[in-house]
């Protein structure tokens, strides 16, 4: 498998109120293409900072970061914007869709910044929405969609540019268990069937259990990095959750 992410001795310090905060101490991490990696850790452990560095939203204070063979830690703001547009897809806890904007237009947005023509944009956005099972909701605005549907629009938006790396920051944090497993089974499908690479930040062990590999961060360092012998199948968990929901609903 080809190496997609390679972090070497990456650290990130912040100056907060005059004192230095070491959010990341020294992190070495490699991720191969086609992996489903969960990053876990308590809040304040540095996992969000790690995610921001991986997402080229933030630059490391020290160390090097190679993404798809390109050294990106030294790139300037516009170059990083280009990398985010070409190589990365983001899925956030709060969905982060544009308000008053249809699912279709939300999904098209990354292609707008890439300068793709209108008809081509529409075609690819529709394909992405079909891929996440929202073909019948393309003209709905976020307020007309459920949380799970909104998150699927966000996934479609992340997929539409066909990026090698998907970054999901607590993507199920705002969802109930049924929609949580819907989203997770979609992510698993993307890795299994489409060969995507997914890095998912979570503090829920149940969610992390669906990944093939769990990286644990604490106090700005990676304290454990383990392959999961048998990742849980979100489809099965989804069935269980649905049954429980029906049961609770019936009782």
């Amino acid at each position, binding site marked *: 498998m080809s190496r997609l992410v390679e972090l070497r001795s990456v650290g990130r310090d912040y100056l907060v109120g005059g004192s230095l905060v070491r959010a990341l101490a020294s992190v070495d991490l490699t991720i191969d293409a086609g992996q489903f990696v969960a990053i876990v850790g308590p809040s304040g452990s540095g996992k969000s900072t790690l995610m921001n560095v991986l997402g080229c939203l*933030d630059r490391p204070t020290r160390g090097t970061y190679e993404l798809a063979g390109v050294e990106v830690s030294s790139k300037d703001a516009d170059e990083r914007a280009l990398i*985010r547009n070409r190589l990365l897809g983001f899925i956030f806890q709060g969905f*982060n869709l544009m308000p008053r904007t249809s699912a279709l237009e939300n999904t098209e947005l990354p292609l*707008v910044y890439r300068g793709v023509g209108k008809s081509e944009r529409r075609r690819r956005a529709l394909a992405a929405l079909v891929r996440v099972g929202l073909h019948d909701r393309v003209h709905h605005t976020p307020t007309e969609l459920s949380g799970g549907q909104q998150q699927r629009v966000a996934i479609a938006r992340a997929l539409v540019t066909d990026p090698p790396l998907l970054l999901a920051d607590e993507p199920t944090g705002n969802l109930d268990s049924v929609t949580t497993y819907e989203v997770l089974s979609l992510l698993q499908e993307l890795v299994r069937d489409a060969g995507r690479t997914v890095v998912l930040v979570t503090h829920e062990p149940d969610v992390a259990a669906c990944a093939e590999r769990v990286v644990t961060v604490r106090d700005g360092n990676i304290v454990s990095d383990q392959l999961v012998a048998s990742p849980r199948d979100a489809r099965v968990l989804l069935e269980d959750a649905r049954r429980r929901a029906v049961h609770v609903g019936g009782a």
Partner: protein
Amino acid sequence: MNSLSLALRALLAAKVRALLTTLGILIGTAAVVVVVALGTGARARIGAEIANIGTAAVFVFPDTGMRGGARAAAAGLSDGDAAAIRVDASAVSGVTVWNTLRARVHSAYDSYKTSVMGVDQEYFQVRGFALADGRGFTDGEVRSKAKVVVIGSTVRRELFGTEPAVGQWLRIGRHAYRVIGLLAEKGRTPFEDQDDRVILPIGTWRSRVSPASGQRVQLIMASARTTAHSARAEEQIRTILRERHHLGADSPDDFVVRSQEGFRKAQDAILDMVTGLLGAVALVALFIGGVGVMNIMLVSVAERTREVGIRMSIGAREGDILLQFLVEALLLTTSGGVLGIGVAALVSHGLASALGWSLRLDGGAVVVALSTSVLVGLVFGILPARRAARLDPVEAIRQG
């Protein structure tokens, strides 16, 4: 195109706010355009009134001021002065002396108090009077002090009603005069009703209407060959009269020369100043509107920090964000400018009918006001837009 629809959508999301912000620009733009339209209208109106009197007219008054003390009313103007101007002033095409007094005039039907004037035969040409009926004075009538008059249409209405006036008789004091001509209507100037007059040959006037005034001349009227000759005509008349009045190099004029053209220029200068001043105030208002735009754009950027973060996370560059907010500010000010010109058109129309002026939107003023509103959008939009573009994506996404 895309950033335009994006900006439109953002503005429509907060309609009332956008409308209020636009209002500042709207008022400023409308003020600029209306002020200039009023200035242009006033100028046109004064120009029309002066044209009615005759743009090439030059008036010479005796200066009865007591500046000289000893000189008092000694000199005055004479027929000889008028004759000298006629012969020697090359920029002058016609000259007449002019005396007037208020007197009651009687016809067979009625009597009426009006201005009774004594003039040369050139009077009609100098003042631009045409005859609606009959004829003017002949040289012989002027020389022989014939008892003939030309009357204005107001006098004709008062004395003869709808009867034809030419050939009728009227009486001033003890003497009867035959009406030989009727002036074509000329309308009012700011100073007088130009149709309210009875005109006699100057000799007749002196000997029969006002024997007490002797050879005195109240006013010499001349007309320059063209409006462009006005200044030269003024200068020539002044030179001729100073020589005739034996004024030394150090003594002041004992007369005053005034041309309509000079009067118009003075009026224009004042109007230009007032228009310029008010226009500047209006432009200041427009800029204050711009400060309002900046304020609202700053609020908008603060409110949409998260949106900016999201856009950055999916690949928007600083330039993309900058353009987005700049276009929004430009859209605000430009639509304010366009609406302002619409309002200015309405206000001008209303003012035009209220004042009875002909007001037209000045193309230059519209261009200046519109381009200023665009400029205001650029100037006051750039700071908020830069603030948005410089946001740190990590911080921006975390907010909201």
